[in-house]
Each structure stands twice: as C-alpha cells, then as structure tokens.
C-alpha cells in the first residue's frame, strides 16, 4: 500500500518491523532472563553475606585439599568451557556445522567435569557431617547457605549441559541457526559469571588458616 509523504515522514521505528537494539527476539529474551536470574543469585548471596556477618564464629573449614584445590580446578573448567563456547559461536557464524558441534561438546565436557568435581567435593563435606541443617563446626546456617547457593548454581550447570546437548543435536541435524548457538552461549557464560562470585564468597572467604 502506497504511503503518502506525510505518512512516510511520520513513520518511525515504533511502527514495527524493526528489531529493538538490533538483536533478535530470542537473544533479547535470554538477556532479560539472565538479568532476572542474576538478581536471584544476588539475593541469595546477599542473604548469605548478611547471615555470615551477623553470626559470630562462622566456620571456615575449607582445606587446601580437597576443597580449595577442587574448587579452583572447577573454576578453571568453567572458564575453559566459556572459551570453547565462544569458539563454538564463532564456528556457527562461519557456517562450520561440524566445528560448532565439536566445540559445543567440548563445552559440555567442561560442564560435566565441573559437576563431577563439585559432587565429589560435596561428598567430602557430607562425610564430615555437613547437612542442610547441621554441621560439626557451629551454626547450622553454614550448611544451609553452602548447599543452597552451590546447589542452585550446580542446577544451572546441569540444565545448561542439557541445553547444550539439545542445541548440539539441533545443529548437527541442520535445524538450528547461529542465533540458537549464540543464545545458548549467553546462558552458559551467565552460569560461569555467577561462579565468579560464588567461588570467592563461599570458598575463598572460608579458607582454613593454620
């Protein structure tokens, strides 16, 4: 339908057909979700910090071996998986289907390594008597905050690995685009980002000094 000169002059971006921020809807949606999820973790971490400051004699039980060594290695795994995710996104923009799948698999391996190490480390603590409601070192809040925060994060890693698997299968079948890979990448980097705060606040501030 032809538009008059006045209509042309008054047409604006608000008339539709334009992508806000020049990003696709999937990507914008994922960013908005990430902001909301970041606030969830912020609330948890802030709650933990508050409880910790208000509690005298908060336990600092993490030995270099296995806790700090394991958690540092876990940090390395997650950071490296973010690296492989960037390489996967790059490959998808190059239309390199096989390369994309390979790098996504590498990212999943990093996530799985993180989870296995984390579960082993949890096991050590559980064997020392730490539960959600008690521990041998003092306030029951220690176990509650520790398992609550790291548990929620590990759940994000777990769902992230499942998400990556779905994307890898879709890419391999030729059904998913570079945008799908990029959006998945955003979620995975977010999981890594949260760990950047959980690691120092939960582990490094509770190092066992001799």
């Amino acid at each position, binding site marked *: 339908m032809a538009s008059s000169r006045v209509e042309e002059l008054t047409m604006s971006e608000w008339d539709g057909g334009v*992508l806000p*921020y*020049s*990003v*696709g809807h999937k990507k*914008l949606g994922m*960013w*908005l979700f990430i*902001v909301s999820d*970041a*606030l969830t973790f*912020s*609330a948890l971490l*802030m709650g933990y910090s*508050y*409880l*910790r*400051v*208000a*509690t*005298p004699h908060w336990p600092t039980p993490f030995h270099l071996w296995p806790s*700090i060594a394991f958690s*540092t290695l876990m*940090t*390395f795994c997650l*950071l*490296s998986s*973010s*690296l492989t*995710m*960037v*390489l996967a*996104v*790059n490959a*998808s*923009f*190059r*239309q390199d*289907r096989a390369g*994309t799948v390979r790098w996504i698999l590498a990212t999943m391996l990093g996530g799985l390594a993180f989870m296995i190490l984390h579960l082993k480390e949890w096991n050590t603590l559980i064997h020392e008597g730490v539960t959600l409601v008690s521990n041998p070192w003092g306030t029951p809040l220690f176990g509650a905050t520790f398992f609550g925060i790291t548990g929620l994060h590990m759940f994000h890693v777990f769902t992230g690995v499942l998400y990556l698997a779905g994307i890898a299968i879709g890419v391999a079948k*030729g059904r*998913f*685009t*570079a*945008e799908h890979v*990029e959006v998945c*990448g*955003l979620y995975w*980097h977010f999981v*890594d*980002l949260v760990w*950047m*705060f959980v*690691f*120092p606040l939960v*582990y*490094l*501030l509770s*190092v066992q*000094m001799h």
Partner: protein
Amino acid sequence: MSAHSETHEAHGLSARLTFTVWAWLLALTGIEVFLAYEKLALHLMLVLLMGLSLVKAGLIMAYFMHLKFEKKTLVLTLIPALVIVVSTLSVFFPDSIRLLNMKP
C-alpha cells in the same frame, strides 16, 4: 546450517582476543586464590575479592557475551537496572552488624 540474517554483519570474537581474555580470567583467579591465603582484614579481603570478581564479570560480559559490541542502548537497558537492584539489596547490609552486636 541455514544462514540467519542478522541486522549487523557476521561477528564473532577473534581467536586472539578470546584467548587473551581467557588468560586474564585465569590470572585474576590465581590472584584471588593467592589473596585468600594472605592474612588480611575481612573488609579489605572482601573489597579486593569483590573488585576482582567484578573485573572478571565485566570481561565475561563485554567479550564472551559480546556486550561491548552490541548497541549501547542494550547495555543501558540491562546493566543499570541490575546495579540499582543490587544496591537496593545492599542497603540492609549494615543491619547485619547491628545484629552481630546485639548477640550475647
């Protein structure tokens, strides 16, 4: 894989920049672990660790999550809201010190 028409040209971080950011992230992590074993006052330790973590978070968001190369309005929509809400959460933090001093 079907090509997706982007509103901007095909992008992606150069391999060199990717590895550089990754190396910095590892280095900053190493500094954090080292700091954890230094006998510092809790306040100082917290400020240093959180400062380093914010730098790491910034690197991940800017480069890995590509925010540095997105439209500035997207950054303005996402980040200030996050900062404001986290600051609002922090407002009650000094109350924990009051609680600590109230305990027998």
